[in-house]
């Protein structure tokens, strides 16, 4: 029989007793490889390091989506802050059985940003619409990861697949989808904006989603 004594309690607990500065990084490193759902479980249990890792993993995506909807850097920053603070305070609102974390997060972001947009009477969008010149100006003034070749090379595999799927979408279908998703417009409002019959808009959205689903099926 071999002895497996742990005479020293502090050692037995596997606690990091090295310098204070490395402590925070070590906490984050511990979680860096954890999948989203596990991080959320740890966040439910109030683990701050897990939250920090999740923040780093998704902040660019949340911010970019907010920016795309709101078209204003300060509003996007506020929305991003609000979304992450809410995620920390009410992490149990994510239910893993309902689907992937990233899909849930994106729906939270989209709904939060669109609510903000609606609260502002849709002024901004009604004047320009998504992808308008005003938006492009705002976006062009901001640093973007795609400006950096290194970042481009490190683009997440999923992003590459998704971009491939989006490129394959006929433009009219993509526009209809983006108007619905990023502008929070009803299909009736989209029809009015595009001067197309409601049935045409419905068909474009249906076909666009169908195409996206097929492109993504079995991928990632």
């Amino acid at each position, binding site marked *: 029989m071999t*002895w*497996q*004594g*742990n*005479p020293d*309690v502090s050692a*037995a*607990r596997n606690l*990091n*007793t090295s310098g*204070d500065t*490395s*402590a*925070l990084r*070590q906490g984050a490193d*511990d979680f860096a490889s954890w999948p989203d*759902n*596990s991080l959320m*479980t*740890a966040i*439910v*249990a*109030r683990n*701050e390091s897990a*939250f920090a890792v999740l923040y780093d993993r998704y*902040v*660019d*995506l949340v*911010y*970019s*989506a907010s920016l*795309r909807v709101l078209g204003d850097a300060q509003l*996007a*920053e506020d929305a*991003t*802050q609000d979304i*992450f*603070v809410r995620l920390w*305070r009410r992490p149990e609102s994510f239910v*893993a*059985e*309902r*689907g*992937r974390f*990233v*899909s849930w997060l994106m729906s939270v*972001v*989209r709904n939060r940003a669109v609510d903000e947009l609606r609260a502002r009477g849709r002024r901004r969008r009604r004047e320009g619409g998504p992808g308008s010149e005003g938006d492009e100006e705002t*976006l062009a003034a901001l640093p*973007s990861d795609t400006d950096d070749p290194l970042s481009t090379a490190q683009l997440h595999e999923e*992003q590459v697949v*998704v971009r491939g799927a*989006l490129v394959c979408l006929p433009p009219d279908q993509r526009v209809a989808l983006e108007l619905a*998703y990023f502008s929070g417009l009803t299909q009736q409002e989209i029809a009015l904006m595009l001067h197309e019959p409601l049935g045409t808009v419905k068909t474009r*959205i*249906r076909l666009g*989603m169908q195409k996206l*689903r097929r492109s*993504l*099926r079995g991928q990632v």
Partner: protein
Amino acid sequence: MESTHVTQEQADEFAIGSLPPEVAYAVILHADTCAACRDIVGESQRAAAALVIGLRRYAPPERLKGRVLRDAGITRPGPVAWAARLLTAGAGIAAVVVAIASFAGLVSLRGQVDELRDGNAQLQTNIDGALPTKVELAALTRRLSDTEKNNADLLAAALGDRELLLALLSPDSDVADVIPVNDSVNAIGRFVWDDAQKKVWFVANKLAATQKDQTYQLWVNSGGRYISLGTFNPDAAGYARYETVVPQGLKSYESAVVTIETAGGASERSGPSVFVTDLSRIRR
């Protein structure tokens, strides 16, 4: 809608936010109870999320992270700070241990099932087997936790103990209550057996210090024979966390017992018992 199921078109409109709120809510409610529709909605949501994931990415200003953490009330203590609090926490540790067990048994079930279901269909059988035991044990520990004030900081501290957390979350682990042999011992303990990591943990609090020439020793009863798993002593606050590997070749075990033996450990169980754990009802 065909019967009450969600159509593909509804799922798509739900995912891109085009459904009226009351219909969207009905979709959520139905998908919660219908696996087939949940898959349909999930696939649509993934397609909709692609619209965002495919966007050109912009980084927010660096200052945002500080704002978020402050607003969330996070002071960002590292493991060292947690450890310091643990060491001075005394009786509060019981709540931590209990909360971990409750947490592992209940809160994590969702994530656990979800991830492993993705990974390997065969694992489903294991999960289904492990869950009832965990829920049952968690219910027991939850009762205990009602008598103690849960402390979120301390729970976070214990969760910083990554290996133990992994063991608690693992479908291959089992958690058993450790029962004091007599009423004069008011310590609370848990015994965690993780077949995947081939490890055993024993955690307890309010554990009295032994005499200088004595030690606590953990034994497992296999086929009527007591096999030593090693010796340990609590810290100044009465907290003990002992971990060891499952001895090779150990296939069956009926119970575990903690005894007080002479310092260095005994080769045969001989001292007075402090705790016992019934391992027989743990499912294999």
